[in-house]
């Protein structure tokens, strides 16, 4: 049987579906009226704040120079770093000094280590998400400063940015609907600014950094799409995030330290409450067995997963300033 015959056979199999009863005109008119009524309710004057958000300059140029505004959580971070300074004296001073370092500098591993440490010590999911958002801004700023200095961007910076972008989605997906929506707005806002910055960087970057910047650019675009999806369809968003999470868990992608949702880490992974699809209600998953809460996903269709129902280890605490690796 040739391809055309096969295609025709498959189409014939679905032919019966073409005959459906006509739509009830009254129901259609009612649906239309409700839709327009809802639109009228939602229609509100555009606020000055919203106008400002849409301003291209304010979302691209300002983030590069208004660092204080862009990293609202850094006050807390500085407090933690200062606490380390008090506790450990000279070592703490090194940590504090490392906060402004760039990836090509000797203190940079200390900076990333301190970020990992801060996340490990932070309990509330919302706070951790805020930290990771700030850290992702740091990565973009590092790329900007490196290029401004005429230096090449190490691949590790982009990898770390990708992991941070993944992580904020995972953290948001583990929250209840109200919290998740609030956080998604913030995620989108940050990703939007980062995306615009990346667009600028791509236009003036040397050819050797092109592929790396393109990857980051594409990933940020995806982040915006995921955020938009979450705002319009929270269940679908959670499912997508979970699929990404499970896929990466089995492939040994680039893990971050302490992201396993355990005492070390971030991520809705193992011990965070998750949402039963379709119910929009957070439920505590028993132990580490999160897969069973996703009826659509099956072991047979996801070969990367452990088919006993136990997710494969996802992230492990890394050593030094880098991210850990799958066992």
């Amino acid at each position, binding site marked *: 049987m040739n391809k055309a015959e096969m295609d025709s*056979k*498959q189409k014939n199999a679905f032919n019966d579906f073409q005959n459906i009863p006509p739509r009830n005109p009254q129901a259609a008119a009612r649906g239309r009226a409700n839709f327009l009524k809802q639109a009228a309710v*939602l*229609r509100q004057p555009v606020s000055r704040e919203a106008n400002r958000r849409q301003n291209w300059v304010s979302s691209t140029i300002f983030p590069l120079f208004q660092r204080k505004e862009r990293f609202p959580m850094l006050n807390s971070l500085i407090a933690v770093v200062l606490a380390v300074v008090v506790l450990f004296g000279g070592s703490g001073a090194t940590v504090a000094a490392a906060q402004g370092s760039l990836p090509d500098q000797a203190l940079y591993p200390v900076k990333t280590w301190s970020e990992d440490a801060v996340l490990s010590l932070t309990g509330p999911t919302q706070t951790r998400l805020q930290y990771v958002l700030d850290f992702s801004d740091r990565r973009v700023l590092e790329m900007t400063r490196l290029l401004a200095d005429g230096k090449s961007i190490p691949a590790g910076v982009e990898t770390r940015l990708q992991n941070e972008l993944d992580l904020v989605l995972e953290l948001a997906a583990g929250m209840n609907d109200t919290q998740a929506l609030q956080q998604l707005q913030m995620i989108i806002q940050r990703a939007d600014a980062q995306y615009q910055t990346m667009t600028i960087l791509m236009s003036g970057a040397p050819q050797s950094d092109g592929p790396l910047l393109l990857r980051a650019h594409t990933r940020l675009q995806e982040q915006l799409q995921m955020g938009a999806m979450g705002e319009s369809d929270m269940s679908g968003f959670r499912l997508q995030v979970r699929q990404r999470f499970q896929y990466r868990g089995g492939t040994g992608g680039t893990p971050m330290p302490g992201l396993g949702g355990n005492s070390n880490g971030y991520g809705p992974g193992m011990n965070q409450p998750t949402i039963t699809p379709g119910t929009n209600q957070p439920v505590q998953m028993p132990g580490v067995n999160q897969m069973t809460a996703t009826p*659509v996903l099956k072991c047979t269709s996801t070969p990367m997963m452990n088919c006993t129902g136990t997710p494969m280890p996802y992230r492990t605490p890394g050593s030094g300033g880098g991210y850990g690796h799958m066992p």
Partner: protein
Amino acid sequence: MDNHVPSDTDLLDLARQFDQQALAQIYDTYSPGLYRYSMRRLSDQDVAEDCVAETFSRFLQALKARRGPESFLQAFLYRIAHNWIVDHYRRAPQQPQELTEEHPDENSDPVKDAGHHMQQERLRKAIRELTPDQQQVISLKYLEGWENEDIARSLMKPVGAVKSLQHRALASLEKMLDREEIL
């Protein structure tokens, strides 16, 4: 007389300002197709109407959050509808349909109709067993007659991935239906 038909982009520009005329045009353009799509997937008129209503409601919410589509509105709307249908089946396992005394058409053959209905239900059930992405590919390709490029936009995946999903979905369907007469 101006016969200019506004493009998706023009309509969306107006829709973002909650222009009633543009929104009405969007509803009139896409709701009949969305209804047919929902009916084919759900086989229940009331539930299909719910699906259409929720799809457009979510569309408005996306506009409100300034995160609606820039273009390819149809792909965006069908993606929402598909997600709603997947959620619907997860929320509520299918209830058996009630039998009624009345028959819609005097000339029709009840035995033949029942056969068709059973075949449809069997195929519909098999489609529901596929992964969400596979379901959407099969529905848009074979029930709605979309091209792979349009399906790719709806799924936000490359065309190659769509072809791969289609291939795997058909193989799974064939297996589920025991290689009998349907496929």
